[in-house]
């Protein structure tokens, strides 16, 4: 058979056209099959992002991320509420990659390619940022069109609330999904709090009213006190609770302070803090391992015990005048109606027209004694010494690792009421009436003396000036006698100021030294250091 050359040429052309057409279709299909979008993070929590993470990236818990509620830039704003945080180190890096990466710059296809980032679950637990220091937030869901947008090579995930989240990335051509990837993240929050049965102190004051800047280096890190060579407890509360065993505890300076157990066993974990010697350490709650990402810090100060002695002296006003002539009885002018008793001091105010003459009250011109002798002591209110010592040592000053030995001295009857008004004059430090009590009742053998004397002239609870051995407490005005003693000792023994109206201007209503709040008992870290320097 003789072949027609034209037919042959036409056949070849048709074949070439078919091949060309088929090749174009085949190209498109191939691209769809080989283009991949991928996210990588440290899913196995070993500190690096590498191929070993892939097997873990969609498995729970995936990447463990702390809630970012500390204050890395020390600007007194929680990092969660802050942006552009210098020193921020709590965000989790996520690397984003296209394969082949040239597709991002391929003008033939880039306009059709969209990449979407979204949290398919747990969106409220995270925020996404374009830098490790929170420069710009990436609001989810976020779509990148490769024709107009630059796909970032890394994004940074911030934990904002505890719980699991799935972060998805999807690559689409038009509406057709070509590739996707998912990362599992678990956000863990750890909070340290006071154990109600603790022996020493815990300071979690997050004040917003400080006028002076000397409170804490890092506002959101609480402080714990412990006695050296002794232990105390603190509570670590872990959320999400099913991941508690991913939290590890470690001390930054084990020569000063140690912590146990090293790994949490429950969502509410009691930790034992062991003060080794005088010094500080930070107890870290780290995720995944003892060297993992930090989720919470607790400052610990280990103090040596300081011991002080306190004498409590109950003081009564001594009144013992003698009625020489009964009231209403006739008396010659200037005849003695009332005379001082054994205390050799006149305790009686004259009545009628009677007049004072030295230590006597004599009848006036009416020829009658009008004055009743004052021979009734003015008694003061007592307190329980053992209860006071327990309160001082187990509620208040134990916070600063200081202990009081309280001794009751024999009560005194003193003729201090110089103006016979039935009160102790407390209008300055010290008044002559206060000086009489100090001189007659004070015992310098004790570090400090507290005189219990009722009926202050100004209705106050107590008075002890800064750095004094002697102080006055008026229990007739106090509903919390032990607390009043503790407060006055704060002034006298340790020179503590009122936080609310002193140089600090800090409305710390729980503070022992608050000027008006009833029965506050807390001491803060700055006070621990003054008490136990």
């Amino acid at each position: 058979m003789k072949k027609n050359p034209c037919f042959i040429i036409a056949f070849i052309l048709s074949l070439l056209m078919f091949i060309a057409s088929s090749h174009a279709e085949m190209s498109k299909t191939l691209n769809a099959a080989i283009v991949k979008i991928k996210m990588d993070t440290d899913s196995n929590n070993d500190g690096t992002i590498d191929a070993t993470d892939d097997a873990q990236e969609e498995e729970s818990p995936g990447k463990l991320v702390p809630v970012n509620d500390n204050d890395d830039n020390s600007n007194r704003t929680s990092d969660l509420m802050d942006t552009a945080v210098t020193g921020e180190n709590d965000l989790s890096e996520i690397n984003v990659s296209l394969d082949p990466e040239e597709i991002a710059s391929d003008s033939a296809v880039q306009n059709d390619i969209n990449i979407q980032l979204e949290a398919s679950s747990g969106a409220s637990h995270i925020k996404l940022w374009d830098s490790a220091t929170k420069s710009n937030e990436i609001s989810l869901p976020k779509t990148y069109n490769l024709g107009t947008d630059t796909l970032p090579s890394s994004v940074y995930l911030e934990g904002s609330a505890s719980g699991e989240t799935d972060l998805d990335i999807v690559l689409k051509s038009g509406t057709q999904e070509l590739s996707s990837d998912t990362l599992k993240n678990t956000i863990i929050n750890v909070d340290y709090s006071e154990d109600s049965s603790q022996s020493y102190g815990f300071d979690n004051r997050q004040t917003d009213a400080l006028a002076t800047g000397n409170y804490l280096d890092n506002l959101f890190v609480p402080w714990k006190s412990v006695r050296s060579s002794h232990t105390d407890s603190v509570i670590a509360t872990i959320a999400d609770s099913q991941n508690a065993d991913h939290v590890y505890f470690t001390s930054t300076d084990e020569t000063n302070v140690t912590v146990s157990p090293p790994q949490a066993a429950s969502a509410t974990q009691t930790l034992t803090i062991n003060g080794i010697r005088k010094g500080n350490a930070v107890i870290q709650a780290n995720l995944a391992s003892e060297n993992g990402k930090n989720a919470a810090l607790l400052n610990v100060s280990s103090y040596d015990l300081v011991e002080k002695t306190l004498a409590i002296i109950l003081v009564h006003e001594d009144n013992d005048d003698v009625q020489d002539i009964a009231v209403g009885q006739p008396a010659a002018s200037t005849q003695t109606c009332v005379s001082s008793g054994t205390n050799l001091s006149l305790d009686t105010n004259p009545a009628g027209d009677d007049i004072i003459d030295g230590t006597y009250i004599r009848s006036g011109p009416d020829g009658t004694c009008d004055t009743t002798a004052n021979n009734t002591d003015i008694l003061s209110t007592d307190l329980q010494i053992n209860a006071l010592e327990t309160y001082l040592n187990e509620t208040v000053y134990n916070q600063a690792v200081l202990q009081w030995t309280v001794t009751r001295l024999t009560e005194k009857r003193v003729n201090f009421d110089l103006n016979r008004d039935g009160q102790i004059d407390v209008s300055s430090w010290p008044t002559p009436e206060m000086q009489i009590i100090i001189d007659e009742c004070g015992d310098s053998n004790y570090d400090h003396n507290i005189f219990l004397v009722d009926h202050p002239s100004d209705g106050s609870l107590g008075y002890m000036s800064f750095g004094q051995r002697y102080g006055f407490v008026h229990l007739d005005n106090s509903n919390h006698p032990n607390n009043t003693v503790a407060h006055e000792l704060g002034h006298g023994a340790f020179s503590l100021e009122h936080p609310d109206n002193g140089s600090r201007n800090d409305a710390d209503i729980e503070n022992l030294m608050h000027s008006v709040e009833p029965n506050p008992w807390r001491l803060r870290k700055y006070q621990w250091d003054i008490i136990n320097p």
Partner: protein
Amino acid sequence: MKYFSIIVSIITLLTFQVNAQDQTVEQRLAVIMNLLRQTNTLSTDAKKLVNQSPESLLEQLAPYENDTSPKIRHFTYTLCKKISDIQGDITTRQIVTSKLVNALADSSPLVWQHAAKDLLSFHPDDFTEESKQTIHSYLSQDNPKYEIILIVGTANMTQSLPRLISIANDQSNNSPITGKWYGTSGWAAHLSSARLGHTDSTQYCIEKVSSEPNPVIQVTKLLKDMAYIRQKEAILFIKTYLDSNDRLPSLKANVSGTQYAQYAIDLLAECIINIPIERKYVGAYTPSEISNIRQWMNQESNWLNFINK
């Protein structure tokens, strides 16, 4: 007045209200100690003096130095200190300082801290060579206690000055590992060195106290540290507070804060032997007394020869 009250105190402590005439000192002490042990109460009702020699009293107290109760041991050493205050011969004082130095090794902070504090009120002659050797051995240990370092200065142990300077110059001893800078061993070493006449340390202390921003701490705590130094420059530094009309913050509405000068005059009354005022306590000095002492210190330079070391 103070001396009188101390005498009254010791009298009342060593007497007892029930059948006092029939009891020996040993029996009376036993009653006092038991009452203290059981009730935290100290009887001061008795009126009669126990007429005993200090050596005898100290001997009677000796068994209580080894009592199991820290409170009793502390009280025992306190009584020893009182005996030395009253029966002030050098022999008694040396016996008492020896006891107090031994008490520095007590396991109870209540005991050793107060023994250390009591030792600071003695004079160099009151410390025997044996006591000084013991103190020096404590000073030579790693991380000597703050209180021990101060006793070295009080006892005028000039041979320990190199060790003190070494502690003072070690920066790790000057940074508060917790607490405040004025609670560090480095600060104590500067104070003690200054007391021994090391002028650089005196200057350091003056500058350090001057830089303390909290006036309450500066006046109520750190001026006491300056008074410990007992050197001319330190006393002149305290004098600047005597000359000041500033006051500490008020603690009561309508009541002014305490004058700095009250704190200064109280310390100067302790530091200068020939100062023409009896030591009382902060707040008890009248405006005219303060005025007079200001004038006296400005006009009378002789006080430099009467620093109470």
